[in-house]
């Protein structure tokens, strides 16, 4: 008899968790959305359009926030939105999803690319079908998209990160970079920018980048890589992690081990609230990021502008982005090319102990 009662108990516990979880998921969505909506004003610009966003992968709150911003603007403007989180953070998974969107004949697709050149075939095919293609957060080869919503100029990000390293190391010493996957375009771009800046200006000459480790945006691998860095370089001073997963994993390792290595990089305030602080207790004095929700909103407005043909992706095109702060946005050149453009959301935003409490509720 005992065996029977035990299995009944287990089944009951199981059922409650089944029922409970999805309910929670719905609940939080509605509560967050209502708080935002009240402030924004819309002009029904996306009437009759179907706009799609393809994030890097499922199961990552940063991507979720981007999709949230995108959805909010598209629905606000009266269009229909399609949100697709690929099965895994690989180009292969994104190709399948984009193919499906081409079949659905959507008007525009905004992609956060997992790989610089793996998507070129499928994006070309989409453009041939008359679908407007734009990228956000992580770019592809410029010829494969109309324009790129860049959350912050590569130079600005590189500059603020190298300055942070300079400040935290006191001007000299060893530092390491913990990145996401090696083929993520934005990561590599920022790291190249940091290296270029530190070579040109001899102010950073005595900074020594010992290693670029790759955590693949996987929590355990990022943890293992952080521990490996600590063990390999005893007199390491600073770790710079320009990825939300990497920085959260590294922060926990450093804070738990009370290591004097200091952390900076790009992280979500809601994730990093636990670790931001100047005192010994906290592992990350300050960090940077931008508002992924705003990035999603900008991508939506860019898509609308492209579909309405108000912009074609050429440099110096200009378009209104609803009631966003630095609207209207102009398309600026990517690096020094005449042909390919990008839109900069704004400079990276600094999160430190003072403002972390306020921002951790937002995203």
């Amino acid at each position, binding site marked *: 008899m005992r065996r029977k009662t035990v299995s009944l108990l287990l089944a009951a516990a199981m059922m409650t968790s089944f029922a409970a979880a999805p309910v929670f998921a719905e609940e939080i969505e509605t509560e967050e959305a209502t708080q935002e909506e009240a402030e924004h004003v819309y002009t029904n610009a996306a009437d009759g359009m179907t706009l799609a966003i393809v994030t890097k992968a*499922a199961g990552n709150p940063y991507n979720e926030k981007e999709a949230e911003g995108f959805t909010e603007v598209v629905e606000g403007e009266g269009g229909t939105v*399609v*949100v*697709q*989180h*690929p*099965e*895994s953070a*690989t*180009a*292969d*998974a994104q*190709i*399948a*999803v984009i*193919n*499906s969107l*081409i*079949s*659905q*004949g959507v008007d525009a697709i905004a992609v956060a690319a997992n*790989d*610089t*050149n*793996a998507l*070129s*075939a499928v994006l070309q*095919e989409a453009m041939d079908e008359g679908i407007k293609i734009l990228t956000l957060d992580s770019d592809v080869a410029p010829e494969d998209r109309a324009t790129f919503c860049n959350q912050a100029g590569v130079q600005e990000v590189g500059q603020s990160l190298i300055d942070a390293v300079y400040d935290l190391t006191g001007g000299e010493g060893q530092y390491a970079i913990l990145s996401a*996957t*090696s*083929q993520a375009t934005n990561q590599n771009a920022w790291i190249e920018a940091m290296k270029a800046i530190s070579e040109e200006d001899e102010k950073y000459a005595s900074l020594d980048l010992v290693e*670029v*480790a*790759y955590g*693949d945006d996987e929590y355990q691998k990022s943890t293992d890589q952080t521990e490996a860095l600590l063990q390999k370089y005893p007199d390491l001073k600073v770790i710079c992690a320009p990825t939300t997963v990497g920085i959260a994993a590294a922060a926990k390792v450093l804070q738990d081990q009370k290591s004097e290595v200091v952390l900076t990089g790009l992280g979500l305030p809601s994730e990093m609230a636990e670790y931001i602080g100047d005192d010994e207790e906290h592992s990350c004095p300050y960090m940077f990021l931008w508002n992924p929700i705003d990035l999603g909103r900008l991508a939506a407005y860019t898509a609308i502008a492209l579909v309405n043909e108000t912009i074609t992706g050429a440099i110096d095109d200009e378009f209104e982005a609803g009631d966003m702060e630095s609207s209207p946005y102009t398309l600026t050149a990517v690096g020094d090319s005449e042909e390919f453009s990008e839109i900069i959301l704004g400079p990276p935003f600094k999160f430190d102990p003072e403002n972390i409490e306020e921002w951790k509720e937002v995203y």
Partner: protein
Amino acid sequence: MAGKSGRTISAEPRGTVKKLLFSWESAMVLVFLGVILLGNVISPYYTLKNVFREMPKYLSEIFIMLAMGYILVLGDIDISVGSIVCLSATLACIADNAGLPFVLVVLICILTGLACGCLNGFIASHFTELPTMIITLGTQIIFRGIAEVSLGPGGSISLQNKDAIKLLSRKIGIIPVSFFVVLVFALIFIVVLGRTTFGRKLYAIGSNSTAAKYAGIDVQKIRWIVFTVAGTMAGVCALFFLASTYGASTTTGQGFEMEVIAMCVFGGIATTGGKGKLIGGFFAAFIIVCLRIALGQINMNTQLILVIIGAMLIVSVLIPAIGNALRLARKKAEKA
């Protein structure tokens, strides 16, 4: 030396039509048509053109499914095919970046697969005491380990000259080239398993490898050949994978072996060996592909699709047990 009692035994196959109609394979065809119907109902975009556009990504796995069918019929298993795809694609990219001509890149891709399969076969045939699950568990980790080491800390590599490989992802009309290649390979594999002496030897080994040995079949040589073929097909799959993603990374091919085994089992091929037809696996593959395309077009959460496929797999293998349970229940009812 006519039989003393002159008793005759009939040699005419009877009821073949009935057997064919109620076989697992015909059920697969029905389910396949059902999925096509479902697709059209739930998604307005479920046109032939769109289905063929979205198919190539899944087509490359069917190459391995064909060879995995052989391995399962033998009563063995190979969980290293995913890692072989990874290693083959990686070495092909390295060759391409080193400037080797496209033909050599293709050769390297396929020969790497062949070599890995040959290693699996060698160990399986010379250490018959070891279950092939353990052997391919070891080689799975080794092949992916070699790929990780050759990719270096970056963990990924991309093809330099993409235009050469583009001919593999071209389309004739709306149908991708890889679809025709898959059909040709499928035809060969199905006929060889079903109609040739080699095929029947596989069924014999899968049903009772000792009796097969006593009947003069060189069991270990055949197992070696089949594992080598499986590795080679993983190489071919890697080639078509490169044709769609122009690059490889340490996670390439992850989980391929499980998807491919699921297709075979869903198609009626038993993991215990000696049972099932490859045509069943072939249709099962297309059932899963077309279902994923249909559900994708209604933007169902990609992970929920995996839940559905997992559930379908379990229900399909439970059918015999459910059948027996019903028969037993009926018999008890009659007896009572």
